[in-house]
């Protein structure tokens, strides 16, 4: 990647011939449009979150974050993420192992199906579980008889989060592991290593950065998911509100400053995610190349 980039800058060097260089007016126009677009659509909304959050001073900022309902929301979000991310991590590794190391009929269909949750509206991701487990759902009456609550309770929130973050890890690992093939694993087996040992000592080190990359993106989405969780949560304060839902409630109650204070937590999480993602892309370009190029598809929901 670095190689081709330097060739390109070489082409654009000032002493190269006229027809190869963008005319100066064009260059400045395009730079102007790019800066304007990024400023208007990215920098301004980002800044606004922090300005609104700190509008009434640091004291009220921290009050909003330490208030009981906010703490409960933070706790629930951490819980939902700490269940859904590991589940999807295990799934991602298993699916990538089966797809990258073996040939079987229907493989490309399976790859498409793994992408499916990105094509489904988050609202529908919540709805499907209501249809199964809700009071009027398929298993609703049975669940009610046995006093098991899924919808408007924590299990529903976890399920909806698992649904929307389902493909992240798998989508990062599959292209990378397919590109790496299975020669190294076969060599390890020939040398006498067992299956698990081969996986831990050979496969995992080869994909660790892509894995980490998938996990941070999965986590960001898990903690920030709004639509799907909103459908199944029931919005019970202090009980079934995640951070994004708490933000919504505060905002709708005109507690704007408090809403933005809580939102700033999620914004910081987003910034940390972006920084980590960029660092991995720059430092470990090679090892996540296949994965990085597939990121765009990651988010097609």
């Amino acid at each position: 990647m670095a190689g081709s980039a330097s060739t390109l800058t070489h082409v654009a060097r000032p002493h190269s011939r006229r027809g190869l260089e963008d005319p100066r007016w064009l260059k400045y126009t395009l730079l102007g449009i790019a800066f304007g677009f990024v400023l208007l659509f990215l920098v301004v909304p980002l800044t606004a979150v922090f300005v609104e959050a700190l509008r009434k001073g640091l004291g009220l900022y921290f009050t909003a974050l330490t208030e009981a309902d906010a703490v409960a929301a933070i706790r629930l979000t951490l819980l939902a993420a700490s269940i859904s991310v590991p589940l999807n991590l295990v799934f991602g590794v298993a699916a990538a192992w089966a797809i990258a190391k073996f040939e079987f009929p229907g493989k490309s269909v399976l790859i498409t199906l793994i992408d499916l949750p990105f094509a489904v509206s988050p609202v529908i991701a919540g709805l499907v579980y209501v249809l199964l487990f809700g009071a009027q759902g398929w298993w609703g009456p049975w669940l009610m008889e046995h006093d098991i609550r899924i919808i408007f309770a924590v299990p529903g929130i976890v399920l909806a989060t698992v649904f929307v973050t389902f493909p992240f890890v798998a989508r990062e690992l599959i292209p990378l592991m397919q590109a790496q093939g299975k020669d190294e694993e076969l060599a390890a087996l020939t040398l006498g290593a067992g299956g698990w040992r081969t996986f831990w000592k050979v496969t995992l080190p080869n994909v660790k950065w892509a894995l980490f990359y998938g996990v941070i993106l999965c986590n960001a989405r898990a903690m920030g998911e709004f639509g799907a969780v909103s459908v199944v949560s029931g919005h019970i304060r202090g009980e079934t509100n995640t951070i994004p839902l708490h933000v919504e409630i505060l905002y709708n109650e005109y507690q704007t400053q408090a809403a933005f204070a809580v939102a700033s937590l999620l914004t910081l999480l987003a910034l940390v995610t972006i920084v980590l993602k960029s660092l991995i892309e720059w430092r470990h370009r090679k090892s996540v190349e296949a994965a990085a190029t597939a990121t765009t598809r990651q988010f097609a929901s």
Partner: protein
Amino acid sequence: MSTALASSQAPSRPPAAPSRWRAVNRRVLPGFGLTLGFALLYLSVIILLPLAATFVKTAGLTWAEFWGHVSSPRVIASYRVTFGASLAAAAFNVPCGVILAWVLVRYPFPGRRVMDALVDLPFALPTAVAGISLTAIYAKTGWLGQWLEPLGIKVAYTPVGIWVALTFIGLPFVVRTVQPILEELEPELEEAAATLGATRLQTLRRVVLPALAPAILTGFALAFARAVGEYGSVVFISGNMPMRTEITPLLIITKLEQYDYAGATALAVVMLVVSFLLLLLIQLTQRWFTRRSRS
């Protein structure tokens, strides 16, 4: 992009006689049954069965009932808002995204890495946060709203606001699909055009843009697909007025809250079918795209 696509879609070597690949694959590397079994089970339980439930639930309706649910005036108005704003946002992201990708790949300027990283913000920022932030900016007293309203441009609580939110949400798609293609574009092509006497603008229009076309189309379709299902960023800025600024995903939630399960599910089926068609379209463009980049 090309590596990922090629590897995920190439039917990978014609399979030898079944008995042989079974011998080579299954016996030597362990874990095939375990990993595939777990992956299929998990996929079925979390994704496929619940989605199937939606279709089964709708199958209980007669055709006339279904049609009644998905074609009432309020529903039709919500399609118009959802698809119209999504289309406008994705279309706006095409030129802006191509320019952004071009600038990031071709012009060295201070702050390029920061700008490159920032492009991912809409992927990483929770949609609800984007929603309240954009609303605050474009409301009557907001940073931009206070200047736009006297000019007669109302953004918050109008379809324009929905367009702003969907443009934000779809921003990274065109950039991130075009960028890798631009990085790998052979400089020889542009040199040849220049040698043959083309002006720079002619080269850009006749050589560079056609090479980017499949990526642009993919990016457009991804941004559009994402926008159609979007909920979180839109509900705050749209004002949610039935017939005017109510999007279809919100209408699904409204129907659910009124315990109109059949209506909500029928609408969900319409949205799912649209999403699947878009997914199919995206896969077809990508296949076209891989074939083109190979030849």
